[in-house]
């Protein structure tokens, strides 16, 4: 019942907004929907902490892993949603009410599709939902209808659609492997994992290849990542926060589901080596772009590619530490990246340029935004008090335990390179004298308050992890097949 409520809230909100005319109505429905989704998602996640999954008409099923994802989607959705109200008020005035309506409606639709993708048990429906996320965000990327917006949106659509079609082929082959072995069977993950030991390893490996390329495109893994910098830098701040923070994790979620099956059938070696290779390639390419980057939104986008690479490395290293590190890093990355993209929105509003050299003396001009931006970037490049430092430590520890020392060492070196590049860029923005025409003071204060929650959670994940949360992660690991 909670499950249906969770999915209904964004769907209904989206429908209602698309009908309403006045901006205030839209904003209120949007805000209430986001907060309601957060509450329901939170309750669901806490209840699922106990471990036994909740199923509904063999279509929807929330086990520990999906509860984990629901919690992330709901939380970041709420933070970005509240911020979006402040952002849209300054970005679009009342003459462009049509765009505002489009923004809020598609925002809620986007949250709905993501929630559907992580809560469904049927792999086909999951594929459709993920394809739905692309379709929902395409118009959001192009909301300013500029030349570059159009180009980014078209590339995003064509590449995601082509990429995900391959994922569907992978799902079909997985279904074929199941039906060839057992005969008539629904395309549900639980049944698939049940009969996984008996499946034909070659077909499952072939299917996993397509899954890796297909959902890898959605997750932003290396050779398939080229749409990501354009789409995330052109989209408005709240949307790129959601896309970077959560949508990439949904892609990784799908990969983890199929990896669980493939590992049981064909042994972990196959999926691990390729995940590690793609992860390292993502890290390397992102480092090349981050060494000297001129546009701070593209910098954040490339750092998403980098962190997806780290999570893929974590999944590739596997074992208790590897999987736990990857999950933790997903949360840390979602929290820090969404905060940073929202702040980049405020910076864009204040400085009217995405060029790093154009932004000077941010700490002087907008002290709050500047300070939080600094904390966010420090978290992102892996400095101690924040979460990513611990999760990266755990991932690389798994790397050494999985005897893939070469990958781990190269990964650490590339991270140091990224650290140098990003710190340099951020320093150029934060310090120095702010130019005169930039009026001092933050663009708006109250919509940024919820972001304090991000910071507190980041430090929380960095230093201490209460037992309840540890036990929750234990269940998630059991689902993924690491802890038996």
């Amino acid at each position, binding site marked *: 019942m909670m499950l249906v409520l969770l999915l209904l809230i964004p769907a209904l909100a989206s429908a209602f907004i698309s009908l309403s005319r006045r901006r205030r109505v839209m904003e209120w429905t949007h805000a209430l929907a986001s907060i309601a989704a957060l509450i329901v998602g939170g309750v669901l996640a806490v209840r699922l902490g106990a471990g036994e999954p909740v199923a509904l008409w063999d*279509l929807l099923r929330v086990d520990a892993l999906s509860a984990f994802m629901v919690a992330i989607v709901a939380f970041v959705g709420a933070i970005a949603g509240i911020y979006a109200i402040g952002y849209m008020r300054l970005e679009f005035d009342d003459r462009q009410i049509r765009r505002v309506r489009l923004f809020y409606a598609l925002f809620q639709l986007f949250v709905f599709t993501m929630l559907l993708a992580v809560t469904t048990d*049927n*792999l*086909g*429906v999951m*594929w*459709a939902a993920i*394809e*739905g996320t692309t*379709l929902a965000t*395409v*118009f959001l990327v*192009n909301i300013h*209808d500029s*030349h*570059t917006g*159009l*180009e*980014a*949106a*078209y*590339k995003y*659509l*064509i590449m995601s*659609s*082509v990429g995900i*079609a391959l994922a*569907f*082929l992978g799902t*079909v*082959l997985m*279904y*074929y492997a199941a*039906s*060839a072995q057992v005969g008539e069977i*629904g*395309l549900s993950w639980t049944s698939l994992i049940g009969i996984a030991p008996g499946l*034909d390893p*070659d*077909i499952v490996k*072939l299917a996993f290849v397509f899954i890796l390329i297909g959902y890898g495109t959605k997750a932003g893994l290396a050779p398939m990542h080229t749409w990501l*910098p*354009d789409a995330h*830098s*052109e989209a408005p701040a709240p949307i790129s926060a959601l896309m970077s923070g959560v949508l990439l994790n949904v892609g990784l979620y799908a990969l983890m589901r199929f990896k669980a099956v493939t590992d049981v059938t064909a042994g972990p070696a196959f999926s691990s080596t390729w995940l590690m290779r793609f992860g390292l390639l993502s890290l390397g390419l992102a480092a090349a*772009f981050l060494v000297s980057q*001129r546009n701070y939104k593209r910098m954040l986008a490339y750092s998403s590619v980098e962190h997806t690479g780290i999570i893929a490395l974590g999944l590739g290293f596997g074992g208790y530490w590897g999987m736990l590190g990857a999950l933790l890093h997903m949360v840390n990355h979602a929290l820090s990246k969404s905060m940073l993209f929202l702040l980049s929105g405020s910076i864009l509003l204040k400085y009217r340029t995405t060029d790093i050299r154009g932004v000077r003396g941010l700490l002087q001009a907008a002290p709050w935004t500047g300070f939080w931006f600094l904390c966010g970037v420090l978290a992102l490049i892996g400095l101690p008090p924040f979460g990513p430092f611990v999760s990266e430590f755990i991932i690389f520890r798994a790397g050494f335990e999985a005897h893939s020392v070469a990958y781990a060492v190269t990964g650490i070196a590339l991270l140091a390179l990224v650290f140098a590049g990003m710190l340099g860029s951020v320093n150029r923005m934060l310090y120095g004298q702010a130019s005169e025409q930039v009026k001092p003071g933050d663009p708006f204060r109250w919509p940024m308050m919820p972001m304090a929650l991000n910071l507190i959670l980041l430090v929380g994940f960095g230093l201490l992890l209460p037992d309840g949360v540890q036990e929750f992660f234990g269940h998630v690991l059991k689902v993924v097949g690491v802890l038996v």
Partner: protein
Amino acid sequence: MVLFPELPFARVANLLSFLFLLMSFLLLIRNSLSAQVRMFAVQSGVLSALAAVVAYFGGSRELFGVAVLFAFIKVIVIPNVLTRAVSKIGIQRAVAPYLGTSVTLAICAGLVVVAFYVMAPVMASNRLPTSDGIPLAFAGVLIGFFTTVNRRRALTQILGFLMLENGIFMVALLATYGVPLIVELGVFLDVLVAVLILEVFVYRIKHNFDSTDVGQMGALRG
């Protein structure tokens, strides 16, 4: 339910699969947009016929309904949407693809060989009579993918994407007599919406860049 009918079912299925692959080759060669859309319509027709044949021999009414729905969307709705787009865009100077026709055909042949090599394990373990068509279907997927890479015009890229979708539907059809209904519906819905959105984008690209050559959209780099 009749699982192993007499011989002709397998040969009919193989014939239709071969026809499907032939259509995709032809689509590759034609340069004029309207001809390409017609080729796609014919290919979808062949595919819906194959679905009907499999539904008849496989004896599942559900698959028959899917075949009819497939025919309706892929043979009627999408082609006239695309022809409307072609007429709206109007005449354009011909934009040559990256590779010449002969090189494209050579590559497609290569892709077919790759398809056979890749689909060998599926063929080996599949007991269904329609299993020989699977490599042809997968070849259709690869050729569709290659079209999106090679062709510069937006509309042809959409056709490439649709060929890819057809190939995947065909693989599902031949390997497992189609995937469960709920999934099939989801896929059709997504493909339809994707094509509509792509069509909207083609108009906007035409409006902004006054040509649908997607290659010269290169502002966002580095």
